[in-house]
């Protein structure tokens, strides 16, 4: 058992931020590992690098 619960921050506007190295199970049964101190997991489903955030949730503006 880890000494402390894993901290997950729900940003609301974008990804979930998960602390610590994580192993992520995907819908197809595969797994990916992220060794970062903090991992950003996509929640908007627009990322081109699932399951990770690639900032595709950002608002878009027309040229001025």
């Amino acid at each position, binding site marked *: 058992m880890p000494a402390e619960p894993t901290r997950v*921050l729900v*940003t609301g506007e*974008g*990804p979930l*931020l998960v602390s610590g190295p994580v192993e992520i199970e995907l819908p197809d049964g595969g797994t990916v590992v992220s*060794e*970062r*101190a*903090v*991992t*950003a997991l996509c929640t908007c489903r627009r990322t*081109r*690098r699932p399951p*990770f*955030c*690639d*900032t595709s949730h*950002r*608002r*878009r*503006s*027309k*040229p001025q």
Partner: protein
Amino acid sequence: MTLTDVPVAAPPLPQARGPLSAAVLAGLRGEGFALPPLTDADPYGDDLQLALYCCYELHYRGFAGVADEREWDPVVLTGRRELERAFLAALRRDVPAGHDVAAELDALLVEPVEPAGPSVHLQRHGDVEQFREYVAQRSLYHLKEADPQAFVIPRLSGPAKAGLVTVEHDEYGAGRAERMHEHLFARMMVALDLDPAYGRYLDATPAPALAEVTFMSLCGLHRALRGALVGQFAAVELTSSPGSRRLVEGMQRLGLSADASEFYAEHVEADAVHEQLVRRRVLAPLLAAEPALAADVVFGIRASELLAERFAGHLLESWRQGRSALRTPLHPRSAR
């Protein structure tokens, strides 16, 4: 390429580009340091930027034939101060003042529907030679990636310091030397048939690319500019993910290897995390602890945007005219 293949020797001194850089280089060679008046100098120009760049390099890896102790030579520091004052005065003049950090960040986080700039050009139209020119110039920063920002660590305290170190730790490979961003960059250079030796492309790199790096060093080395350094750091971390994705796609379009594109692929994902950390764990606690820094955070963001736009303009205009964006052409790519 392994880590031991990258040479660690200090680079040679570059060629002068005018009276100011000639004076600094003579001083560093031990021929007497006499900086001429700066009255007519272009603060963004090749001569002043190279002179300042060379003064700052004494705080990083130094130069071959220049004693390490010259880093704290008061004569060099006095000359450096003159050059810095001219550069900083120009930026303060050319960057509109502001103090609303939240509004500044919101603006950075909106992606244009039709983005423009070098990453779009390289994604859609650029050739391998233009990628090489881009990477050669960017090597002045990326072979010391995160180093200028590391100078700010002891100038911060509490949660903002811890947050900034979390991001820096990731830039330095999170404990794995082979994942250090400067190492990923060196591997990309080799894949593009460029020389990954530190400082190798200094002579070839024009002022707009140098100015982005001198600005980081200026803010990193002055505690009084710590707010601007954090602003600069935020601007880069918030804006680099989409541009990095475009560069990966451009390299894939040109059939370049994964070794070439890994550096930018890493930044798509890493900077999506760093954006969140910089906003929530660096800027928010920094401004809570030192609200008076807001104006300098905005200055750091806007000055980096100004310098990035100048660099982008230089690249696109050079390539539009069908010429090299470097001062001296690269050696041709060897046949593979």
